[in-house]
């Protein structure tokens, strides 16, 4: 924005630089530096104790070992499914908050979405375990009602992981959806209705196009959270969870193979980056528009 009242361009740029300095410093020290270090780490191979050479061996291992990329693909697909499920559940909730309820009631529903975050993720997930384990509340109830003959184990299923993931990320979908739906002028919906639109066609032609940046923003945030989630899949899925973050954890902590762990980390980063890019391309959104919604 050219502005005649302020000084020459370099002066303003200096000021801007100074204002942004803390943020840039933080970005550099905590994100860029470790990432560079990890990148270097991932491209080397130990040939002898304390002796390393540059190589692509870590990445080769990933593709050579079916378990690794099987877990990788599984993590991506399940995250995607859970993201879609979150969207489908969050949309009616957001619609209710933004369009149907007013004032106190609307705020109340919002708080209900927020409540799960008052307890730590660990406690929250353990709560699920108490409900779902074989001797837990829900299996006992099902057995009591005669749905199942005896209490069944509800933990350690893929569906359980999905439920847990959806539950933890609902809020991150609801917030951008509410803000984008709130900005939708009610008279547009009425006008569409007046012109002969039905509920479904109004949703498709008016509501979704308007809310697209919010939907994309919510999906991106939720997808990334799921991809990077460790606790929920590990606790609810147990040994069979096979989440990629667990593989990274194993490499770093259990096997002490930092090189392999770093390579896995970068593969996960590449995955989330390409999925975000794909999502933006498919929905025809621009990154800037979407990020303004979050």
């Amino acid at each position, binding site marked *: 924005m050219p502005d005649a009242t302020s000084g020459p361009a370099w002066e303003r740029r200096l000021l801007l630089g100074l204002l942004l300095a803390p943020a840039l410093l933080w970005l550099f020290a905590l994100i860029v530096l470790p990432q560079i270090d990890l990148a270097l780490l991932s491209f080397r191979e130990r040939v002898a104790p304390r002796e390393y050479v540059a190589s692509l061996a870590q990445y080769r291992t990933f593709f050579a070992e079916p378990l690794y990329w099987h877990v990788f693909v599984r993590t991506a697909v399940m995250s995607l499914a859970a993201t879609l499920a979150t969207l489908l559940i969050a949309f009616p909730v957001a619609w209710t908050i933004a369009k149907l309820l007013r004032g106190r009631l609307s705020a109340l529903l919002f708080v209900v979405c927020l409540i799960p975050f008052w307890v730590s993720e660990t406690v929250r997930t353990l709560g699920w375990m108490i409900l779902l384990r074989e001797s837990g509340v829900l299996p006992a109830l099902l057995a009591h009602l005669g749905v199942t003959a005896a209490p069944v184990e509800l933990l350690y299923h893929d569906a359980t992981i999905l439920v847990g993931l959806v539950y933890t990320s609902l809020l991150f979908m609801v917030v951008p959806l509410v803000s984008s739906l709130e900005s939708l*002028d009610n*008279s*547009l919906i*009425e*006008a*569409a*209705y*007046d*012109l*002969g*639109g*039905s509920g479904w*066609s109004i949703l498709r*032609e*008016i509501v979704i*196009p*308007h809310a697209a940046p919010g939907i994309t923003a919510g999906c991106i945030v939720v997808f990334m959270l799921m991809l990077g989630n460790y606790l929920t899949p590990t606790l609810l899925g147990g040994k069979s969870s096979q989440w990629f973050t667990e593989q990274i954890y194993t490499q770093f902590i259990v096997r002490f193979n930092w090189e392999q762990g770093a390579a896995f980390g970068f593969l996960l980063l590449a995955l989330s980056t390409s999925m975000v890019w794909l999502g933006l391309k498919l929905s025809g959104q621009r990154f800037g528009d979407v990020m303004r919604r979050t």
Partner: protein
Amino acid sequence: MSAAGTGQDAATHDLDVRGAVKRFADHVAVDQLSFSVARGSFFSILGPSGCGKTTLLRMIAGFIQPDDGEILIGGRSMAGVGPNRRPVNMVFQQLALFPMMSVGDNVAFGLARRGVARAERLRRAQAMLERVGLGGAARKKVDELSGGQRQRVAIARSLVLEPTLLLLDEPLGALDLKLREHMKIELKQLQAAFGTTFVYITHDQSEALVLSDHVGVMNRGRFEQQGTPQQLYYEPATPFVAGFVGANNRIVGRATGVAGAIVSITSEQGWLIRARSATAIAAGTAVEAFVRPEVAVLARAAADLPAGQPAHGGEVESLLFDGANSAVLLRERQSRVEFRIALPQTGQFADLRVGEPIHFSFDPARAVCFPAGVAHA
């Protein structure tokens, strides 16, 4: 006049509202309202802010259900018929064009909902845009249009569906004065060209008078009077209509003598005038009289006033120059009652000065008075 349009002549009416009532909590927004609109005519609902105009229109469009009464469109009862199934379209006050679509798609939206094939609906949308003078705008985005162009798109979007009835909720409210004057004429021409029945809401009396074949003057959820613009202007039925439609001098006083239809009135400040009574008035009752600024005549000498009209004197208080609508505000000599008189177009009194003594008179038959203190005050 309220009973007009029930029963047998419903066939020539596109809209019949019979005893419609709408309450919000304990507030009655629309109160036992009945009227009908003849096919192909331009009907305006004129009333002050908050009198229930939008509520009435939304009941006709189907967005809200009347608590009581009945609405018939094209002779068919609309009870239980949703807005998307009524042969009615609405032009919203804020237009409500779809910003996510091109102008052409906006106009074609309703056709698409009716299942018209894509090529056909684009053709019809284009033809409609041409009729409203926007032939080249189909590919533009809504925010690339000017206010007046958007207005026309909003109307085109509704008219392309060939509705029995087009409802317009203060569609010119958002435009600036110049454009509003222009769009007023354009709307009138569009309505004449399409022959669609228009029901038009406004709080601007000049819009209602210029555009309409018939006007209903609404106040507190009811119609005070229905009639042609001329009837409302020259024969107001209630003090509210006299005060709301067109400029008027209002004089509050007491009837001191009644001679046929002409009542002698002494104003609160002691000014004696005469006016025609709209309803029977007994001597001694409190009255409100209305005299239009253009009814009174000015003269520098009392002898120049028309013979046979009671002469009054006053002093010029201020001059209100407004081109052809210029007026002079004066005070009656003794009572100091404020009185507004339109200046003649001849420029005869262009040289009036503030403080100058002046004579004036008006024909009592063209002034009107009502018993005061009626609910509508």
